């Protein structure tokens, strides 16, 4: 991956973390990869609840993109919403969000399912 500005690296990791609120708090405590003083100063303004809601919405939007692009995902969701939610959680954790269009997300999902037991 080409050099990623510090802010983008932080957002990509923290918003996809198991606990985004804790990822934010940890960064402010100086844990994890070192951050510049400028970014730590900016993060001090961040409302933890707003950050958590943003993380939820990031996941929700990816979920919706997948359902929009993949008839197979839609079928799985219709048959077993809870089971699909668990499957999606694994998928979202294991597969980096490189897709922007629904059809791209569908392709990523198909490839992942084909190689996942």
């Amino acid at each position, binding site marked *: 991956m080409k050099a990623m500005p510090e802010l983008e690296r932080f957002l*990509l990791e923290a918003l996809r973390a198991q606990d985004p609120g804790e990822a934010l708090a940890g960064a402010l405590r100086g844990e994890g990869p070192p951050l510049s003083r400028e970014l730590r100063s900016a993060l001090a*303004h961040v409302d933890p609840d707003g950050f958590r809601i943003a993380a939820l919405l990031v996941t929700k939007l990816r979920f919706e993109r997948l359902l929009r692009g993949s008839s197979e995902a839609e079928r799985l969701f219709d048959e077993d919403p809870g089971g699909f939610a668990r499957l999606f959680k694994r998928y979202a954790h294991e597969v980096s969000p490189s897709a*922007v*269009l629904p*059809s791209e997300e569908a392709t990523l999902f198909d490839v992942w399912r084909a190689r996942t037991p």
Partner: protein
Amino acid sequence: MRPLTGFVLPPDLPTLGLLEPLLSIPGYFEVTPETTWRLDDRSRLVENGFHALFREIGRAAARPFVAHGVGLSMGSTSASDVPRVRRWLSRLRRDQTLFRYLWFTDHAGLTMAGGRSLTLPLPVPMTHASVAAMRRRLASMQRIVPDVGVETTAHYFLFGPPLEEPAFYARVVAGARRWLLLDLHNVHTMSVNMGFDSWEYVSRLPLDKVIEIHVSGGVSSDGSWLPSGRSLRLDSHDDDVPDDVWRLLERVLPLCPNLRGVTLERMEGTVDVTTIPRLRRELRRIEKTIQRKAA
């Protein structure tokens, strides 16, 4: 010229079917360009079914289009995303010959991080570097559509005081034919969540730079979503326009001398037969408010 009333065309056939009786009311249609694309088997950006369908809707109603994207990631500075943005702008150049968008806006903030899609427009620090990044992206857009702008995005967190955002936006859109899309529901949502006066925020914006206004509704998050139990307002575009947003519209219209349109937003999948009469009333209310209040 009096501003027109606009409506967003949703990339969803059932929703479009339900909305069909309303499509003669708006004076223009708003399209999110990337919802009309797909990747072919050679990974080229090509038209999907909505591309032709939206053009036909515009042709049949004799209405022009405006473009409002989500995916250009105005505030990104990562080199990883440059190839994708180039492909998108190339595709937009071809679309412009067909849609002839009157103006082209995208959301302030970033939706891509290091070439990875976060989809939700996220805030950037209100710094010179962020202003420069968004102005570079506006310059790229302006090579395709002469009138371009950024939307006042609904952020759920910020990197500085919210009442400093208006001055940040003013720096981003400084210059000829660079505009602001003032989303009043976004301002309202942030004011509720962050505890500031929405009119104080709006009045600090460069209102002579407002080319378009968005109005919509939303719901609140479930308290169980957060460990604190707190509920936040969401910019979900899935409910009636609230009274606070109508009041903001009435107050701001006389102060926007370059306004060209007020757009009603409603998310696909949130419309049923009972929604149609309410949407019709909202579109008519926008028309009447413009007649009474526009500069």
